[in-house]
């Protein structure tokens, strides 16, 4: 039962107020895109034991989608940030690097 702070309303929301949305920072591929790109967009999901970026919706709160960086093994949360972000913010990346020196980056 995670607690994630919603970056929009500032509520430290427990998991029962949230809805999960899978992996974050996916790029959409539309009509005419190569099969490999579409396959990656649709089906290829990371499932790391360690640092992971996820989509969450504050479903029972302000209704906004946000992104979270956390460790799937220890459940440590490195930070949450707005969904209108195309890649992990520098401060969160720096925090992860400090705590997980072996981390290879989000791509």
């Amino acid at each position, binding site marked *: 039962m*995670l607690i994630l702070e919603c970056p929009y309303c500032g509520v430290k929301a*427990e998991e029962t107020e949230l809805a999960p949305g899978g992996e974050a920072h996916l790029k959409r591929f539309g009509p005419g895109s190569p099969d490999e790109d579409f396959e990656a967009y649709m089906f290829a999901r990371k499932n790391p034991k360690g640092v992971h970026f996820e989509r969450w919706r504050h479903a029972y709160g302000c209704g906004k989608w946000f992104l979270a960086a956390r460790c799937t093994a220890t459940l440590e949360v490195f930070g949450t940030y707005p969904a209108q972000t195309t890649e992990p913010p520098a401060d969160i990346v720096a925090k992860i690097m400090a705590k997980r020196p072996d981390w290879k980056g989000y791509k």
Partner: protein
Amino acid sequence: MSTRLAKGGRLIDRAAPQDFTFNGKRLRGFKGDTLAAALLANDQMLVGRSFKYHRPRGIVASGAEEPNALVNMGEGGRFEPNQRTTTTELFDGLTCTSQNHFPSLEFDIGVLNNYAARFLPAGFYYKTFIHPRAAWKHVFEPIIRQSAGLGKVPKDRDADRYEQAYAFCDLLITGGGIAGLQAALTAGKAGKRVWLMEQTAHWGGRAPVDGVEIDGTPAEAWVKNAVQALEAMENVTMRLRCMAAGSYDHGYVLADEKVADHTPGDGRPRHRLWRIRAGQIIAATGAIERPLSFAGNDIPGVMLAAAMRDYLVNWAVAPGDRTVVVTNNDDAYRTAIALKEAGLEVPVILDARATVTGDLPAKARALGIRVEAGKAIAKVKGGKRVTSVAICAQAGQGAVLEEIACDAVAMSGGWSPVVHLWSHCGGKLNWDAAQAHFAPDPARPPLNHDGSALVVTAGAASGVLLAGDVLANATAAAGGDVAPVASGPVEAAMEPVWVMPQGATIDLRMKMWLDYQNDVKVSDVQLAAREGYSSVEHTKRYTTLGMATDQGKLSNINGLAVLADSLSSPIPQVGTTTFRPPYTPVTFGALAGEARGDIFQPLRQTPIHAWHEAHNAYFEPVGLWRRPYCYPRPGETHEQAVHREVVNTRTNVGLLDASTLGKIIVKGPDAGKFLDMLYTNVMSNLGIGKCRYGLMCSEQGFLSDDGVVARIDEDTWLCHTTSGGADRIHAWMEDWLQCEWWDWQVYTANVTEQFAQIAVVGPNARKVLEKLGGMDVSKEALPFMQWADGEMGGFRVRAYRISFSGELSYEIAVPASEGRAFWDALVTAGAEFGMMPYGTEGLHVLRAEKGFIMIGDETDGTVIPQDLNLGWAISKKKADYLGKRGQERPFLASPDRWKLVGLETLDGSVIPDGSIAPAPGTNANGQRNTQGRVTSTYYSPTLKRGIAMGLVKGGLSRVGETIEMTRLDGSTLQVKIVDPVFYDKEGEKQNV
């Protein structure tokens, strides 16, 4: 015999006698007793029968670890099996019965298993019930089911109520012994928001029983002062009778508060489940004494040494007149001393250690108690009660040196920290060889959201057992530096003893119980090891060691030590089994909380619900909505009612509560562009005042929802969704707007519940509305697939000319608060036109007759619109829409795809639901090939024959063919492929 002493008992109130019954026998105890203490005070040592061998069993422990003394508590709506007498507070009028015997506790026929014990070893079930194969289902399983399970299942509805509550704190301290109190004092003074909980009804834990002195005062007085000091702190919340059941991610803890177990029927909730979020958890959960494994260690009268001391000091109950103490440590001497000082006999203390030094043995000797070093119990004699013990050397094979008469045995095999809350969420353990127990490894704690230690242990739970160490450890755990000083005797080191005597023969080992509740013996674990079970987790499951309701609180360490010995492996290498919540069983009522009866789940009701109920509606669930399926009249079956409703709608006029239909407002300069992405067809060019049917697909291209879209004004559209789809589609829209196209100027609002929407359907529909009076609803003023705002019978309405039945049809929306009044007005206006309400099943039949698809019937997440002949609703011009790329995948264009057709039997009968069409040959898995299936099938009262829709390979290109379909029972029928529109193919009726 076991008796109440004339004096003493720190927890009982002798002025408040409490009457209770056990197996119908009227007994008396005192306020403050546990049920176990009261039973012992009445010489009721035999309290149950064991699970497998039905051996007589007595009370072993004094707390949550008790494996034997489980009873059926209460009667009727308050009946509950498997209640531990050691944690049940006595109250006046308590009734209980013993479990697991037939016909009676004293004479139990199941004890025959005991004599056959040699033939019921570990893994007996797996070895025995394999052949012949059919026998499992018809012979073995019914017999095993008959004898399996502890206690009886409650038959009546629970008479009590339960609730849950959320709590938040900086620090949750579980355990109200001196460690927990000291941690709470430390953190409380530091200003932290503290919750302190204790599973029993008393603060202080073991220290007052053990005669500890703290800061020069008796522990009892120190505890009293500590509790007073804590009660005076506003930042500290204290709860008795509150058991922390489990710890979970990010400081989530479930705790079961037994609010009214001891005061049944007083109007309070029986249990309250606290759902706590703690910044940090201090587990001050103490330690549990281990039994010793000697032959006959399960005979009633054999108890844990500390438990016997509890009964003596707390409740003035002496479990025996002559008690032999057997131990591998100094602590058990406290029991011998307490018994002696209470005037009871202690014929001998058998100490497995070769040399016995230390203050406590010296004091025992000084009191004249015989102390035998290096000695052990060869065997306890007795049946339903201990009669004597045979003594032997611990070092030997069990040759009897002497037999000593006694009626009780106090045993102590050392202490194991209660590490459950530490381990539940990932804390790791170290093996402490000196104390022969697993203790938390502070270097590997469970982690919190910020990577810090989520749980720390305090006191005995950390593996420190002496009072002074306990207080110092607890102070440090709470971040303090000045601990109270406790004084007590110096204790010599314990010595691990896993089997007594060390070289016991198989005859003895077959009578050494490890797990009392599941009847697992030393010989069973050794057999498992010989048969190749080297993993402790496998051995647990094979032997059932530690799998009973006590979850091995007494047996796990002893069992894994025996396993390690059998495997010649070190204990830490064998490891422990996993600790899982709950710590002790939590009643289902508490887990359900308020969610039972009417509020089991949130059933959604339309504003017209009460009318449906009053008119005998038979309801069906649609998501969480309850919608009328049909309105049976007296003497009508549901099927007859549906047929009547359909026929009446086709010939006169029907009334449908369509309020559940999803309604989402989409507005903004980019709303048209957005809807063009969302729907497969074009919505941006829809004229104001017009309606258009649209399809929504997932990114894979599969059909997800459908509905009619209305253009409200220049930048506003209203999207209707399916009844079950409103929340999902609204969330889908928001997902795209927030996460992909966040620069588009579009706002959405889910206004589903703002409106009651009522469909007036059938040839007389217009007449009804005209009777109601108001806005012009003529064909010219309000043509098919248009909408208009207006006034109707004095109501503000929005009327849509849309049809899901093929009939002349209006869907009229009014504010929900006026929905019931508007429905009533329609019912009145429609009376003279033969109007009847119809339900969802009628709606289904009407739409199936017209060949209209239903999301969830014709779709299942693998169907694209093209499969349903809905290619006309897919824009070829648009560069992009959600699902377009998915639909470009070649396999979705295959001519072999299953596509929508109509189906009908040759004889007019109804094709059964679930029928499939087999095809020649088999697939790669050897299964029969198929070429289609039925998706919707009904009796059409309009056409007076069965009609169906289905997905069939090749689709409409095969119209006219007859294929074979298989019913669920395997029989076959001949089915003709036809056009899916069965009624009014030209659509003349709806456009009038």
